[in-house]
């Protein structure tokens, strides 16, 4: 007899605007407070204290334009945020400060979230959509030097890049970028040479979000249609379709795989969060709490597995935090 789906462990209210992005920072040792960063449509980044369930700080750095990506860079003291004011801001949050130390003017007017990859101590690569319609630029942070620009060939008609993921198999390997485009295809780019390694048409509609498991060399992408597409990367660096999963309602805004690679969560336009087992994409739970489109889902990085959480931000201005499958 299957249990009914659980209720959220708690719900964070107070953003007064639709929530577009979430990022946990709970990995620090005691007495560090576990934090959740959220970016909203009113341009504010809220830093939530997960012990008190209240906002500790609100960061205003994007001129009241929607913030659609937040990510920490090695610890909660450095934050990266991307907003619709065409800027990526780097924040210094140590010791109670809330200042923008640096910013990158992307000239990108779309919604493509940037992707960070740590390549060495204090050095990151960041992939972001650039000004020109189909291009992706790779910058090195914090120096902000351009590593390369990934331009699809003329006539490829991929459209805008919709979602990016930079990864490398291990330290020392070549970084590669997975990019999902407006025409429904996922492209694997070799970053150092700036060439396409493989391209796969996964969807008929734009790819809204993707995530990749580098251990299993398998990834998953969701789009505005009813299908989730799972694809794999073989030894020749070729993308192949592995499986597809049909959903009940169309539209996926975000997909994320839990760090232990056991489950994944999808944020749906039908207000529901779906949990699947990553191994075989077995549907595990449908969390129906929100009353608006769920824009983002994120798993926490707690070092204690029992404390792991899943957070979802929605258009109804609430952030629901769940504890699900934390025992495995």
């Amino acid at each position, binding site marked *: 007899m*299957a*249990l*009914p*789906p*659980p209720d959220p462990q708690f719900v964070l209210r107070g953003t007064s605007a639709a929530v577009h992005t979430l990022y946990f920072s709970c990995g620090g040792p005691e007495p560090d407070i576990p934090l959740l960063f959220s970016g909203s449509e009113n341009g504010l980044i809220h830093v939530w204290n997960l012990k008190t369930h209240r906002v500790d700080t609100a960061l205003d750095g994007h001129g009241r334009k929607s913030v659609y990506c937040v990510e920490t860079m090695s610890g909660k003291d450095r934050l990266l945020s991307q907003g619709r004011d065409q800027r990526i801001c780097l924040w210094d949050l140590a010791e109670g400060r809330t200042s923008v130390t640096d910013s990158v003017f992307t000239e990108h007017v779309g919604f493509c979230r940037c992707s960070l990859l740590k390549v060495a101590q204090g050095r990151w690569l960041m992939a972001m959509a650039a000004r020109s319609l189909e291009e992706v630029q790779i910058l090195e942070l914090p120096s902000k030097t351009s590593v390369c620009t990934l331009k699809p060939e003329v*006539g490829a008609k991929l459209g805008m890049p919709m979602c990016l993921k930079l990864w490398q198999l291990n330290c020392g390997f070549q970084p590669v970028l997975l990019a999902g485009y407006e025409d429904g295809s996922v492209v694997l780019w070799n970053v150092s040479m700036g060439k396409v390694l493989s391209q*796969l*048409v996964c969807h008929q509609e734009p790819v809204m979000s993707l995530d990749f498991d580098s251990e299993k060399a398998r990834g998953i992408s969701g789009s505005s249609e009813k299908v989730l597409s799972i694809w*794999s990367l073989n030894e020749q660096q*070729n*993308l*192949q*379709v*592995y*499986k597809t999963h049909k959903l*009940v*309602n169309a539209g996926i805004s975000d997909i994320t795989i839990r760090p232990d690679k*056991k*489950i994944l969560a999808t944020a749906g336009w*039908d*207000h*529901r969060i*779906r949990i699947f*087992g990553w*191994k*075989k994409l*077995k*549907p*595990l*739970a*449908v969390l*129906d709490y929100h009353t608006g489109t769920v824009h983002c889902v994120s798993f926490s990085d707690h070092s204690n597995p029992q404390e792991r959480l899943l957070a979802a931000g929605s258009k109804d201005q609430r952030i629901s935090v769940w504890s699900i*499958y934390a*025992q*495995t």
Partner: protein
Amino acid sequence: VCFIPGGLDCCISFVSHVLGKVCIHGRQNEILDILVPCLMDLTKSDCIWQRICWRLVECVPDRWMEAVVLGFVQRAPGADVLSRLLGNLVVKNKKAQFVVTQKMLLLQYGHTTAVLQNLVGYLSLDSLRRTLLLRVLQELLETWSSSSAVKHSPPEQQLYISKAILICLSHLKEPEIESCRQELLTSMMEGVKCHLDSSLPQLRRLGMVVAESISLKINTEGPVLKFEYEEDNETRELKSLLVQTPFCVVPSLPDDDRSEKAEAALPLVPDSNEKPHTAATVMPDEELDAELDSDDDLIPYDLSEDKELKIKAPVYIRDCIEVLTGSGSEDLDKWEATIKALESLVRKNPAAVREVSVELAKILLHLEEKTCIEGFVELRQRAQVAVLITDPIPVAKYLTSQFYSLNYSLCQRMDILDVLVLAAQELSCPKFHGKTRHSDGQKPCVQLLPGSDSSKDWRRIVDERIKNKTRRFAVAQSHVELASHPNEFNSVAGHFFFPLIQHFDRPLTTFDLLGEDHLVLGRLVHTLAVLMYLAVNTVAVTAMGKALLEFVWALRFHTDSYVRQGLLSCISSLLLSVPAERVLADMTEELLETQSWLGDVVEKDPDGDCRRLALQNLLLMENLKKKLEAVPS
């Protein structure tokens, strides 16, 4: 054999005389069937024989020239053969020139396409004759672009002229096109206007095809005129006339790219299909192990609640009204759901609808498409019909008054007519409880496709009905007897009919039925015909009949053939619906006058469909009389 042409004068002219006399007496077939192939072979390579042949035709006296030339043009298997046989006859002989350039092209229209090809090809093959070709083209274009010709000449003639124009265009060379580019452009613009103005779809299509072809010829680079119309055999045939030499079609590049990509994607998929299988077979043990320790831990929760998200449509009519009149882009999903659910809601809640019927009708009439729903026009129309059926009298009053009001688009006015007809049909053909249309009605059901040109359907239905009436034996009813329902159209027929017929001669600033909006007039007339037909066995039918007869009488000489077809269908409906005794009793003088008018139409109307309809009407009248005479008084 060497003849000196001069020395052969007498012989040849005698033969010419014989030839001419035979042809004028109607024996073209016999003599030319033998002569033409013979001459064709002889003149193939021998130029002396060619000269002889030319002399032969040149010497035919003028009064017989037409028959001979006509015969030759019709029989020559190709333009080059005709050229060999006739030579420059058209240049030298005035009568021949008249026949070839004027009579066969502009005054006659019964010749086949092959004959046209011969003729025009013949004109184009020699430099002396090419001036004639250009003149011919100009005259053809003048006819094509004259609005009176488009209105009054039969469609068959217009097709013939269009074909001739296209063939001429195909023969023109670049420098010639250059020289007359301006004239081509002006005639094209005028001609396309007259053609698009016509109410018959065939003529509109003809205009479009010819205009496209002219535009193609004069704008070799740069944007070309392109119309949207349905391709059919006629248009395809016309377009094929434009090309003289076959050319190879270059495959377009985007198609290639797409097919390459499709091919590239395809091999990937079969590969991936294989992989999971091999993985499954090769490593079953490992997989089982992995399954046991990780996935079994993850017990799924209850997933039964995960259903498709359905936007709820409002359940009350007043809520629907609110949503439809609501401000802007509030909730487009709800708006869509309302539109889709409206018809069934209206049908289920007649009492509620009667309270707000006119308001709802008003909203629906002015409703514009906000989002892209499939079948919006049909959904709206069905909703309107449902409202009209639920509360016929006030809504019909509203709609008919709006038909004649200011500031409606032609589309909306024609929409009103369609809705009235559909509702009338539904009211008069009783429905079963729960089913929408009975498939095996005793009356042939009028198939009304919204928005389409329904004139053909009336004809078909009237034809069937006439067939049913003219047969005398009774057909054994093998069908299940349908439960009879009262004809609900009875009480409201007058409300549908009379307001529509009242104001047709009063022009408004934006709407002039008797003037430019003859398309709407045509539709109105057809609508009246259907309403008349559906009013059979109602109380108001005789009054309707009289009013309709007066209406038809006033408009009987209308220039638009679509309107005339409608008027004739009105007469048919009248004769079929009004009981025979009433027709003969109340409308005797009008009937007699109508009969003589119909006789006129049968003989003189340029439109084939009009003639046919008039003939049917005369037959109906005959039947009516016979039936009454057969009944003992």
